[in-house]
């Protein structure tokens, strides 16, 4: 693995909500340190930085007016609530399939030195990647991903 300046971080953000501030701020810091950043997001609304190489799985937010009902404050439907209780969030699992079936997304995943599963929806895919790549490559928190970059950059 090559990390430190010149290394590549992939941010997985497969949830429906906009990216958390802590992630966007970290991305700006990493970019300033010379780290190359890419992102796989569900919709174009989640934007990491102006220069991030980004693959978007859906062309626009879901819902009739192009607004994801869950982020527009509308309550989830009863079937969706039931599925979530069973940990079968349809969006979460569908997003995994979309990533695996997108050649562009697969290339980003393959080229990343460090992967950040930035939201809960990205955890199952992140976990699968972590099982294949081993320790110290796929993280759930920004601080852990930053530590991995710093540790490897240290002489």
């Amino acid at each position, binding site marked *: 693995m090559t990390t430190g300046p010149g290394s590549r971080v992939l941010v997985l953000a497969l949830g429906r909500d906009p990216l958390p501030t802590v992630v966007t701020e970290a991305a700006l810091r990493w970019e300033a340190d010379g780290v190359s950043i890419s992102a796989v997001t569900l919709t174009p609304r989640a934007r990491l930085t102006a220069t991030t190489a980004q693959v978007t799985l859906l062309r626009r937010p879901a819902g009739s007016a192009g607004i994801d009902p869950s982020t527009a404050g509308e309550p989830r439907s009863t079937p969706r609530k039931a599925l979530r209780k069973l*940990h079968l969030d349809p969006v979460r699992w569908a997003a995994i399939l979309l990533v695996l079936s997108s050649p562009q997304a697969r290339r980003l995943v393959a080229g990343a030195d460090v992967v950040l*599963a930035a939201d*809960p929806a990205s*955890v*199952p895919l*992140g*976990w699968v*990647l*972590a*099982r294949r*790549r*081993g*320790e*110290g*490559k*796929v*993280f*759930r*928190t920004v*601080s*852990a991903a930053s*530590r991995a970059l710093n540790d490897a950059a240290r002489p």
Partner: protein
Amino acid sequence: MPLKGARPHLLYVAWGFPPCRSGGVYRALATANAFARDGWDVTVLTIERDLWERRTGVDPALEERVDPRIRIERIPFDWPVLEDDLSRWPALRALAPRAWVKARNLLDQRTFPEKVYGPWRRHLERATERIHAEHPVDLVVATTNPHVSITAALHLAQRYGVPYVVDYRDAWSLDVFSGRRRHPEGSTVNTWERRALEGAQEVWFVNEPIVQWHRTTYPAAAAHMHVVANGYDEPAAGSQARRTDTPLRFTYVGTISGKVPIPELVAGWARAREQEPLLVDAEADLYGYLGYYGAAHPELADALSTGAEVGVRYRGPVSKTLVSELYAASDALLLVLGTGRYVTSGKVFEYLATGLPIISVHDPGNAASEVLKGYPLWFPASDLSPDGVAAALRAGAHAAASHEPVAQAAGRAFAERYSREHQLRPRITALRAAVGATSVETM
């Protein structure tokens, strides 16, 4: 009992010990150092440094304050919920996170009824056994929380008859913020607590309201319960002579958690600035960590953002070693505390030691009010409304602007009763007598 002339051996159990930077660590540091100064062989049993270094941050300057005669035994502490490398996550956690949390909670409490910390019991008991075999322990002081620390004391008491003290500080069964009982009579927690308190040589608490609650709840242990207030370590440096042409500077130092009424302080400050010329250019600087784990509560973040527009500024954390310089450069101190009849705070004692005006922004029924009652430069808010806070700030500003050395000296004289030395000395003397050793105090 130690052999005649031998130094008694204290085993001090504290989950949080330097370089940990949490609020409670100062008491642990002061207690271990006080026993070492009194001529005890002190072994501190605590967790590995890794957790502090990787998760919560450290204060290296605090570690330098540990008496070099103290032996520190660091043992593992697992905190699976904080594991952030997904390769170490079990499948259940990745695929069914809520089910994993439920399972984890059950597993954590299998041997001791405390989420997250329960599994530490295994490491504690193994370590106490080894330490006692290497150098027999004459007294255990187990400091909470986490409450699992008491298992180390109970283990040596049960197996070898070693007396123990529980430094409870706050409470386990009592919610100090709401005043409600958290664990009912007959619960597993209640059973452990009763056993720990009734078998103890002494039990220490930080303030009188908490002691009273426990005396009522566990009358069989009432005679062994004592107040050991947090106190202050050393008097702060004298404040610099105030220049009348500079704006007043107010300071807050402490962890800024979601319970601290910063939004109320900001609202009161804004109101006071409209009413009081002395406050128009004044500044309130807030120092401390945001939350216990380094993240600000959203409501708090909003308040800090609003505050920056009216002169209330968050300045970030500050090392304990630099706090006295901050006090010396301040004209008045802001005591902003969460609500609760049972809530005191370490900083109230530090504040007292400065002799500076103290503006209280907390519920008047807070236990800190009992500590401050009689302090000549105390300006408490009558309530947490903008007007209540503003009135206290205005009164404090006038006292700060006049900067009377006589009043400051009177304040410091009042504070002497709350030095750590004053709080710990009677207890250490009593415990030395209890374990049958003679005093060999050293510096």
